[in-house]
């Protein structure tokens, strides 16, 4: 006797292109803010980079 097993894909998420674009921009925003503006432990490591870009405000 053969058993047929059906596998269902769970958690399928369909996002419209607009929402996907918004998410990509949000991620890019967080990355840019972290690298260019945040005053966390990253600041010291990226201080030179920030000052080499001409328009990135620092303290």
């Amino acid at each position, binding site marked *: 006797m053969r058993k047929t097993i059906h596998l269902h894909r769970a958690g399928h998420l369909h996002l419209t292109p607009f929402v996907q674009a918004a998410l990509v921009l949000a991620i890019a925003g967080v990355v840019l803010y*972290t690298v260019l503006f945040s005053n966390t432990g990253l600041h010291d490591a990226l201080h030179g980079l920030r000052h080499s870009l001409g328009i990135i405000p*620092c*303290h």
Partner: protein
Amino acid sequence: MARWAVRVLAICLALVASTAAAAPEELQIRLTTAVPFAEIRPDRDAAAFTLTVTDAAGRLVPARLHLALQAPRSGWFSTDFPLVEATDLFAGEVLAPDGRYTFTYLPPMRGQYRLQVEAWPLGATAAEPTRGTLTFTLRETPDEWRNLALLLSGLLVVGVVSGFIIGRSARALGPGAGALLALCLWLLAAAPARAHERDDLAFDFPAAESNGEIAVRLELTPHTSATGRLTEIQGAVTDPHSGQPVPNAQITLAMIHAEDGIQVFRTLLPAPGGEFNWRHQFWDGAPHYLEIQVTPGPGGSAFTPLTRRVAVDVEGAAPPAAVKVKLMAWLLGVMTLGMLGGYRWGLRQRPPR
């Protein structure tokens, strides 16, 4: 009657002539640099600036000068130091004993600087000085524009690629993007770290030093300096035995960036009554050294020169939120443009279902 008229006219002419003789002499003040302004790189090169004071005939005039330098305003984009823009960078009184005064300064940013000068001829009793505002413009370092172009190009490419992927396959965000987001959020949430090391420096004011012949006292107000505002540096040269001021000593005041070792400012200061002061903005939020050298000046007593170096704590402050928001909008705007182009491209490449 005619004789009276002639007398009145003569008196009037004499009054006019005496007024003209008492009027302060109009001085010409020029600002020059050892290298052309176009070659001075802000935040990189300290340059020697020379003020020359001459009379109408072009002869050098020994003068007392009051200077105030103001930082540029930014244009469309912020500079590296938005809190410093349009603020006073230094102010104080100096001497040009032979008609020339030279100082060394590392300018912080690109843009047009304004140097306000008031000049009094030495020895003259003119109450009203000659006033003038000298301007000079510095350009941004070319390397920085190149780096910015690279950043914007990178954002454009990322935008095009992500727009293409969305347009072509409508694929959901991959786990890599989620991991990157999580990493950034973790870094953002990390405990704030103080930029620039200060632990090995002692910031002790007032500072005092003596070599047995003279004593120097140095005071800073406020004790902790900050970007965007002037700090007053006051000092006095005294006889350590009598406590009396030592007049006409020559003061050399220099400021050195403690991390880079770069001399960011150097000037000679007059101390006719034994006291001197200067107001200065430390525009980089990092520790600096203040170095003072006291040597015998013209007309003063002889003594062994004395040098004292003290550390100055300079607090940096976060840039204004509005500046950051505006710049983020520009950067993400570039990326959005790339995404729109990439999306349209991806739609055309989408395989038929």
